[in-house]
């Protein structure tokens, strides 16, 4: 197995976040601890570990905080499904409201015909014919 290059290490490190800093990815983190983690990634790559295996190892060791986004499992699904579901629901409500508008106008027309006053006018107009 060839020695992993700095680019190889940084490619994996850029997908992981420093567990002891706020929003700093491992490839640019200046802390000594982050250097230790980058060294560990280099060792793991040299041993032939895949990017997925390294990411899984970091999650098992330090928790989900090392990932850029919460993994899609358990309650985290809410974060992924809620926004599109709410948008879809909003669209359904909007469409059903819009569909109701022309029907309302037609209904008003029907009511006018049933109006006794208009019926009287209509009858008188027919008599004129």
């Amino acid at each position: 197995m060839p020695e992993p290059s700095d680019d190889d290490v940084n490619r994996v490190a850029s997908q992981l976040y420093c567990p002891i800093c706020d929003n700093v990815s491992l490839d640019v983190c200046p802390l000594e601890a982050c250097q230790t983690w980058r060294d560990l990634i280099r060792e793991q790559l040299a041993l032939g570990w895949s990017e997925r295996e390294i990411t899984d190892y970091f999650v098992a060791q330090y928790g989900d905080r090392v990932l850029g986004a919460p993994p899609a499992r358990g309650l985290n699904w809410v974060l992924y499904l809620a926004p599109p579901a709410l948008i879809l629901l909003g669209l359904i409500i909007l469409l059903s409201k819009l569909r109701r508008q022309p029907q309302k106008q037609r209904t008003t027309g029907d009511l006018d015909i049933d109006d006794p006053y208009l019926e009287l006018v209509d009858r008188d107009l027919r008599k004129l014919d």
Partner: protein
Amino acid sequence: MSESTVKDHKTVNLWAIVAIAGLVIVLVLIGIRLLQNDASPVMIGEQPRDFSLSTYTGEVINMTDLRGKVVVVNFWASWCTTCVEESVLLEEAWQYYQTAQPGRVIFLGVAYMDTEPASRAFLDQQGISFPSGPDLRGEISRIYQVNSVPETFILDTEGNLRHLKIGPYASINEIQSAVDATLSFSIEAAQ
């Protein structure tokens, strides 16, 4: 009002109910998630949630099995410079209590956000003999709300927090006075 208009109103109301119910469910789930992630700090006198520590020597230590002993939980890391000096003091105190109070005090080292090779090297270099292990997934540090190292928590024989130290101990006397006070408290509480 015609039959179709009434039906349309009912449809819209039904969707509105579904939307509100969906929103409430989402908010409840987000609330549960926040509660899980954001535990409040442990206060003196409170009992922190029990944890298991898988040590680097392959032992599994459950906090529930340590009732009846004073437990010193020390969070450290190999990349923490102040942990180096403190570890010497802790080891010295551990040796002292093994002789002075055999079986009544236990020290646990929790490696906070460290790599296993670096942690093992640190333990070898510092000659640490008390049980130490990694804080897997950050679960133990989440219980104690640890955000930096070193931090030390001393629990009484009932598992309640009696002493906490943020930062390194300055001397062995400081460690002994905290442990002795917890031991005395436990004896008085038992009487």
